[in-house]
């Protein structure tokens, strides 16, 4: 928890309850791309890259949180922000190149069979 040398993001810099999500997302309830899901893995390819001055605190926090690999849902919970809001922010930040989506890109189709077999094998190993 401490002394790891990692930046500590465990204390949110702002109380989420006091925020109005539609202000932070500039009025949008949904992400611009429908490929961002709660399980999408996010990482900032260059966490030190300056965001534009117009970037919100929440966007800055999200990029900092994703200095290493994390799912969208986990990033939201650690930032104490609603998942729906973080989906919109993440989608914008991916479009702008500040975040990369490594995988977990949601599609309406069924997961591919190779993935399913991997999951089956993994679950079989749980004792």
């Amino acid at each position, binding site marked *: *928890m401490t002394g*790891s040398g*990692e*930046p*500590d*993001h*465990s*204390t*949110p810099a702002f109380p989420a309850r006091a925020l109005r*999500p539609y202000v932070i997302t500039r009025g949008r*309830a949904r992400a611009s791309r*429908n490929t961002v*899901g*709660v*399980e*999408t*893995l996010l990482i900032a390819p260059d966490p030190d890259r300056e965001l534009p001055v117009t970037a919100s605190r929440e966007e800055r926090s999200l990029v900092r949180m994703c200095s*290493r*690999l*994390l*799912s969208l*849902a*986990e990033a*939201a*919970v*650690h930032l104490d922000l*609603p*998942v*729906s809001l973080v989906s919109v922010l993440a989608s914008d930040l991916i479009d702008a190149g500040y975040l990369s989506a*490594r*995988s*977990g*890109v*949601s*599609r*309406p*189709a*069924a*997961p591919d*069979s190779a*993935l*399913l*077999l*991997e*999951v*089956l*094998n*993994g*679950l*079989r190993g*749980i*004792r």
Partner: protein
Amino acid sequence: MDSAGSADRYLPDTIQRSAKILVVGAFGVGKTTLVGSVSEITPLRTEEVMTEASVGVDELHGGSRKRTTTVAMDFGRITINPELVLYLFGAPGQRRFWDLWTDLAVGAIGVLVLVDVRTLEESFDVLEQLEERELPFAVAVNRFPDSPDVDLDQVSAALDLLPETPVVECDARDRHSCAQALLALCEYVVTHDPRSREFAQ
């Protein structure tokens, strides 16, 4: 505040892909317990605020003028292998939360419906909705210490399930037992996914 240390919250860099399974069920059936049992991280919880538009009409009869409602979701994580991580999302099954979990279901392997034999009727709506949306699901009967003996065929009949829909018994407190229930769902999806017919090349 946050029980997970910032160092160990991150995924190993080797992880390339993620998958997810939804766990739905009525209040008190053990969703949080199940997610907590199989998760290798301290289960995370979020409260999503839902707007009035997402709230079912039944709210209007409650005498409440509430414009938003919050819904609690539990997240858990299982590292399947060095390249693949599986997320579990536990969400309540009530009618007014359907918008939320049908969004969550996009791209999911499937849905595990957790039921309590003493309150089976509370699952009727959820099951009907899953069938309508053609989402593959399995039913897991959570074995509570004071549950009556369970005949899984009777549960299947009482829930009016298709004969091929898996019904398994599980102990939500036990990691292996929960993994077996998830396994039953995945095995079913391999052979019976309604989406693979629709989206097959």
